[in-house]
């Protein structure tokens, strides 16, 4: 069904793409190479430049410098209607004065298709998003989920080499969103089209993407698969964006075998994974589920006072106050082996070196 998979090299390549709005640099020298058929997520809070980057790829904004290429074609100066790239809009942008079928057929004009071919294509698209029988409906007579599917189908109508999706699930409620994530992923894999999704929701990015690109104030700060970003974040911003994290300031000490370093912290000497020059100020990032909480003296570790234990069904969340007054957060999957400590008890916190990651300060 899909032509783009047959063509060689239709990969998106961004080279030092920069966009300024008066004094504000929205996108700052972003370079990125997409793999063939990749599902890529641009992740970041609102205003980080991810939507501007997407709009430059679609052609709605012109970069101040840098190039945007798709395979051998330079897209940078092409107007939107001449780009072999399509976009699904956050608001869906369904034409309110046209039926579902007319919306789907809109992009098929000018491709040299016969009337029957267009009708066939519309039918295929409706089947793809499971909306058979809705062709005559107006967009305002559809539910939110149905509108989202029409928008997706319309953007796929021209068989783009690359589909851009701006917060595609943002307008859906939580239950529907999880269901739709799976669907989106399935459609992408079936078609083999490259998807670039913009989202501010880290969980969504992790659920969808082959690779995630994290943006911070116009810059692409880290690119990689979800797990790498979660476990080996490049800086404290990425660490915090992808999930809950404890950050402990310290100074880098000597190297031990196996890439383990000792770090001097307010809690004493800790062992952590990572690199750097001895004596440098660093931050240790530890995910709550990596901290092990046990009764006092049950193992080697830091001593603290358990001030909170919150039951969350599949896990329990702890807050442990340390001697210097700061708190660390820990969590344990339920059911845990051994007894659950009670609030007010002195506990021991185990800090495994492979779960503590050294970041630049």
């Amino acid at each position, binding site marked *: 069904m899909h032509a783009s998979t047959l063509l060689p090299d239709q990969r998106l390549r961004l080279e030092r793409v920069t966009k300024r709005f008066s004094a504000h640099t929205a996108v700052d020298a972003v370079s990125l190479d997409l793999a063939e058929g990749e599902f890529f997520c641009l992740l970041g809070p609102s205003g980080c430049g991810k939507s501007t980057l997407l709009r430059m790829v679609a*052609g709605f904004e012109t970069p101040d410098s840098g190039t945007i290429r798709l395979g051998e074609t330079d897209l940078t100066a092409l107007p939107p*209607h001449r780009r072999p790239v399509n*976009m699904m809009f956050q*608001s869906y*942008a369904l*034409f309110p*004065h046209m039926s579902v079928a007319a919306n789907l057929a*809109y*992009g098929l*004009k000018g491709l040299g298709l016969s009337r029957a071919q267009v009708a066939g294509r519309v039918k295929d698209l409706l089947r793809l998003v499971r909306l058979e029988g809705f062709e005559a409906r107006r967009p305002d007579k559809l539910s939110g989920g149905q509108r989202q599917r029409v928008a997706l189908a319309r953007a796929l109508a021209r068989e783009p080499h690359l589909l851009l999706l701006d917060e595609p699930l943002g307008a859906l409620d939580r239950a529907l969103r999880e269901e739709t994530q799976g669907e989106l992923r399935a459609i992408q894999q079936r078609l083999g089209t490259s998807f670039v999704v913009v989202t501010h929701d880290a969980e969504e990015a992790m659920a969808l993407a082959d690779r995630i690109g994290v943006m911070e104030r116009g810059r692409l700060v880290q690119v990689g698969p979800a797990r790498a970003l979660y476990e080996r974040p490049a800086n404290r911003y990425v660490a915090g964006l992808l999930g809950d994290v404890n950050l402990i300031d310290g100074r880098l000490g000597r190297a031990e075998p196996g890439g383990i370093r000792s770090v001097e912290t307010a809690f004493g000497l800790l062992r952590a994974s990572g690199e750097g020059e001895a004596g440098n100020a660093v931050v240790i990032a530890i995910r709550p589920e990596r901290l092990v909480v046990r009764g006092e003296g049950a193992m080697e570790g830091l001593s603290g006072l358990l001030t909170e234990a919150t039951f969350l069904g599949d896990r329990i969340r702890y807050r442990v106050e340390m001697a210097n007054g700061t708190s660390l957060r820990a969590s344990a999957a339920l059911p845990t082996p051994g007894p659950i400590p009670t609030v007010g008890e002195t506990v021991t916190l185990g800090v495994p070196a492979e779960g503590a990651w050294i970041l630049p300060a």
Partner: protein
Amino acid sequence: MSLFARSALTLALAFLYAPILVLVAYSFNDSKLVTVWGGFSTRWYGVLFRDGPLIAAALVSLKVAVLSASIAGVLGTLAALALDRHGRFWGRGAYTGLLYAPMVMPEVITGLSLLLLFVGIGLDRGIATLVIAHATFATGFVAVVVGARLKGLDRSLEEAAADLGAGPARVFFGITLPLIAPAVAAGFLLAFTLSLDDLVIASFVSGPGATTLPMRIYSQVRLGVNPEINAASTLLIAAVGVVVLGASWLTGRKGAIA
């Protein structure tokens, strides 16, 4: 809602409608006198339909209204597009000023100065000068109505069309224009009624052969209450009522503003 606000609203609406109702009622009064109810009669409508000059004036007014509203519809829509789409272009402030000033400008000034221009350039006064004058002061009204609709229009609709391969012309005629059409129609109707209604400007710029309906009515009512004019007014009010209902149906259905 407080009692005070509710009674204020009721009184205001009564204030707005009482004179119109009085006028309509007296158009069916057999007697020529306001204070005397001579019984229900349609005789003034009969008189009206035999009044050749009045009917001729009505035809002139209609012709002028259609032509001037068409021009104002095009110019006002273009101006609204320029203001909404061209961002902060040079001279934008002066542009909006020029567009909106004719709306509030006292009509005697607009009328006199246009007449002086027409005389200065040697343009004969008549239908053409009436059309130009009405189109000039109605353009701003159309621009306001269309501009409000454009502002409420989701820009990503046009971007989506471009994204799906439509060039600028196809985007405009296939997406933008259909979506603002109710507002353009409402603007046209507004320009139409403004033209139909105008006395002051028309009095300055019209020539001997082109007496409009308001000019004719004015020359009659200066002499006092006139039952034939009551009848003519009732018909005009009914016509406007139909137009307004049509316009609100148009705009209400498509979600534009009135």
